[in-house]
């Protein structure tokens, strides 16, 4: 068993209204100094040893993220 993390973010050129809303809310909370916020998704997967890196890449790029609008990073943590 291995733990795998996949982080997905909207591509830089895609408007991220959620991130922007969070950035604006920071100011209201009295936290200045946050220049930019981007919001994406975080997946934690438990996979068994039959799942190799190629399979993980396929899962991430064809299911967990939509390559048209998102970019992603896969990392094994255990």
């Amino acid at each position, binding site marked *: 068993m291995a733990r795998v993390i996949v982080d997905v973010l909207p591509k830089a050129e895609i408007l991220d209204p959620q991130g922007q809303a969070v950035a604006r809310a920071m100011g209201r909370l009295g936290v200045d100094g946050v220049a930019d916020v981007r919001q994406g998704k975080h997946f934690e997967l438990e996979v068994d040893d039959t799942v190799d890196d190629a399979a993980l890449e396929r899962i991430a790029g064809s*299911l967990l993220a939509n390559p048209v609008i998102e970019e992603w990073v896969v990392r094994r943590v255990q």
Partner: protein
Amino acid sequence: MSRIGVITFPGTLDDVDAARAVRYAGGEPVGLWHDDADLRGVDAVVVPGGFSYGDYLRAGAIAARSPVMGPVVEAGRAGMPVLGICNGFQILCEAGLLPGALVRNHGLRFVCREVGLRVEADTAWTSSFTVGQHIRVPLKSGEGRYVADEATLDALEGEGRVVFRYTEPAPNGALRDIAGISSADGRVVGLMPHPEHAIDALTGPGTDGLGLFTSVLSRFTAAA
């Protein structure tokens, strides 16, 4: 009478409405089940709205990969008319049958309101309208903002594949106010607003939406 398939995924909501619209337009709705890779000999397919699989991953992402979508994609590429409404549009984009993607509304809230649309292209699903005609139908979605890269948008415009445009600024922030697009051959159309909720003045803003369904049916009667 032409047979129009209406797909039900777990979480599909507007399948009853789509089937009713087909009936009102004079066609025969045929229920298609997400888990059967079988189009049951239909002449065209409607992928209706709803929250397939809860839209939990991304709107339409899981449904786009279900068994029934294999033959839908294949038939759509071969010229069978396919209409994706709302979640159905999202599914067609996720399945790669239409370009671009639908993302969260720029206001971050679900929006349910009647919208004005301008019909901008003559397709399998819009031949009952005249290009330039204005229609009113409900829009109801939280992830209805159409996006694609500039090159794709330019290509869609250049090839006359923007089928519907919001007449007011898009309530969801869709790029270039795009409400609906088509495949290159004009057979596969996807749009965010709901024509199937505008088929009867009793339950919707009017009957403008019926035109999409009469369009596709007229093709088959003409051919027959």
